[in-house]
């Protein structure tokens, strides 16, 4: 079990990373031109009222004091109030995080369901028609932007065929799932393209490896050689690729949620930027950054579980 000891120690390494994240989000929001007090009170506020607000929110303090307040509030679970929704940012994020998580989960799941068979088909029939088709599709998948892909999927499955809802999130588990299919597919099509390429390369190398030769020499049928020996070894490098891509995806949900009108964090972020709701922007950015750190941590755990040689 000592190989899993890093699960205890690794979070200590997060401290400097989290410190960096907090500094950057804090500074970025303060760099936005304009006086927050004036934004809060509107253009017709009296100078006295503005001064009052500035004192009340500590805006007259030096920036490092403000940062310390920021950290102190963060630790207490305070991320400030949204000026648009008039509620606490943390609670706001809490209500919006579920669609985003569900979307990313659905996207990754569909991507794996698409990528694994495609890569297997492609690798086992290398150089044949199926292989060329998969490679063409995966190149196309990387090439198409998700806003266009999403719109096309809506056009086909919702407008033309009427199988799936056009947009929105729905009520109840089954309804939500149905609403997530198209946005999930939009993410999955581009993600699976990346995964397929990596898996295919790993599988082709695996089929020619000494491990496969030794397995064949034992008389194992080709399918057992492939699924028992080639696939587990080809999965290893793909895990880290997937983790990096999920990090990307979280940013990518901003686009997909807008296209499908999903009430998630991405949409909240976009609305926050347009309405200068800085506390919301800051809170969502922090959440995204922490999520990325967490996903990489999970990827490390999965890597250790899959590969007995790895020690972290």
């Amino acid at each position: 079990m000592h190989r899993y000891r890093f699960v205890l120690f690794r979070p200590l390494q997060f401290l400097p990373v989290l410190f960096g994240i907090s500094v950057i989000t804090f500074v970025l929001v303060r760099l936005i031109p304009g006086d927050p007090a004036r934004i809060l009170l509107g253009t017709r506020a009296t100078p006295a009222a503005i001064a009052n607000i500035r004192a009340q929110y500590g805006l007259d303090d030096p920036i490092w004091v403000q940062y310390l307040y920021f950290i102190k509030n963060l630790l207490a679970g305070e991320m400030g109030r949204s000026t648009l929704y008039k509620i606490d940012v943390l609670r706001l994020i809490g209500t919006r995080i579920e669609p985003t998580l569900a979307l990313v989960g659905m996207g990754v799941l569909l991507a794996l369901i698409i990528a694994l068979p495609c890569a297997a088909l492609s690798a086992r029939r290398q150089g044949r028609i199926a292989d060329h088709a998969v490679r063409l599709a995966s190149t196309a998948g990387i090439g198409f932007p998700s806003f266009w892909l999403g719109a096309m999927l809506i056009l086909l499955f919702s407008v033309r065929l009427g199988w799936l809802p056009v947009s929105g999130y729905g009520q109840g588990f089954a309804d939500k799932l149905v609403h997530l299919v198209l946005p999930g597919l939009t993410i999955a099509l581009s993600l699976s393209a990346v995964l397929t390429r990596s898996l295919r390369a790993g599988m082709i190398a695996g089929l020619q490896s000494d491990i496969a030769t030794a397995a064949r020499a034992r008389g194992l049928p080709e399918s057992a050689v492939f699924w028992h020996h080639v696939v587990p070894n080809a999965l290893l490098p793909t895990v880290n690729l997937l983790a990096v891509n999920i990090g990307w995806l979280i940013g990518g949900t901003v686009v997909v949620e807008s296209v499908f009108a999903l009430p998630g964090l991405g949409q909240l972020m976009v609305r926050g930027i347009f309405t200068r709701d800085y506390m919301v922007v800051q809170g969502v950015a922090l959440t995204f950054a922490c999520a990325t750190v967490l996903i990489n941590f999970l990827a490390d755990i999965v890597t250790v579980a899959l590969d007995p040689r790895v020690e972290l």
Partner: protein
Amino acid sequence: MTPLLSITELSVAFRQNGIERLLLDRISLQLGKGEILGLVGESGSGKSLLCRTVIGLLPSRNLQVCGGSVRLEGSEILRDAAIDKIRGRRIGMIFQNPSSHLDPVMRIGRQICEGLALHRGLRGRAARCEAITLLDQVGFPDPAAAFASYAHEFSGGMRQRAMIAIALACDPEILIADEPTTALDVTIQAQILRLLMDLRAARGLSIILITHDLGVVAQTCDRIAVMRHGRLVEQGEKRALLAAPGHPYTRELIASHPALTSGDVPPLPSHGHARPIFEVNDLEVAYPGGGFLRRGTGFRALRGVSLQIWPGETVGIVGESGSGKSTLARTLMGLIPASAGSVAHDGEVLTLRHMAALRRLRAEVAMVFQDPFNSLNPRKTIGETLAEVLRSRGLTEPKRVSARIDELLDMVGLERSFASRRPRSLSGGQCQRAGIARALAVEPRVIIADECVAALDVTIQSQIVALFRKLAAQHGLTLIFIAHDLAIVRNLCARTVVMHRGEIVEDGPSAAVFDHPARDYTAALIAAIPDIDPDRPMNGGLSPTSQRELTT
């Protein structure tokens, strides 16, 4: 009596773009029940390909069987669609490099159970019991623990045992062993060969043993078949063939075998009052271990090593893998810093006035590496590589560079036209000669050769050793020759240093070290070398490393 396996007139060709090249040319060979057949030849002679063809695993689609037959107990298996019922089940195979042939992410036990389930229908507890019995048979001290372990948790020798257990799980009648001991230390090699012979005795297993080492064949096999350029040049009973080889190539192979008793070893030069070229005092080298928040104690590769090397000496440093011999060489070159103690080159301690001392060291000491291909820049011709050294060294006038390149090529026995060729178009032996030429271009006083013949065929090995001997004699070079092959050191070096677990265990004139080893460890190392004379059995029982085997 019909032989168990009989190969007749087997030919395999490589076809690409309409060009056809015959890689196996009408091979005829027979293997009797319970027999061990040694298949000998240099790399590229087709011995591995022959065995791959027998079990229907041709390594490339461009290879095709173009004639002949392979019969197993009288029935043809060559174009049999049911070859996968024979592969593994009746003919098993083990390979040279167990590290790359074992699945790193599957437990050893599961890899054994795969074969048990497939070929013998054993599952669950029955399979587990049988697997543990097998692991016990091939010599795992704790078979139940080995069952649940992964390949990387074992040393090279134990991995080879695991691979044998996996092959035996299918209960084959024939085992093809493709260079099973080439990557192993001599003492471990002796244990694995002993295991194969025991298995033959216990199970009536027939074995085809592919090797380039005639000593291995002489010690283990009943019959020998010699291959060259895809042809079977000679085969026969072991003793008869070794005593009276019929084919000139067989004679050359036997002559190139580095025997332990050879007379013309240069005498130890007397060093009088000269200053030693290298003086090593109580040297310790440690590699740091652990990582963030987990400071390990590190691994001490060298412990308390003291050594003096005098001008004109030829010193062989021998030891098993992990004994620290390469670390010592690298520390002498100033490539690895000493953790404690000191290394002085020609009176200058390397750590003091570091840059100046290193500059002098690199001007006077040159290194030849183990892998001749990867230590030469593939994008440069041999001439460019040499010219680069000559220019940076600055001793040769720019006008004379090409003339000097010709001289260097002459010295190492390469034709002058090689200056315009790239490493890719050279054979291993030619590459190593180029590597030596590069070392000589420095005009060094000392050459450090790190396992520089280990990757070469025996015939090429003996040529390179002869070249070193000539260079040392003609140019008064000091030679530090690192090898795990004791016989080569015995032939080449006047002095032998034996290393074990980072310490020097014996140091003295080669004749004394080899004929009257003072330490048990040295004696065991020497005893484990397979002699080409079948009547002088190797001694695999005395293993100084059996303990280490279990712990690494």
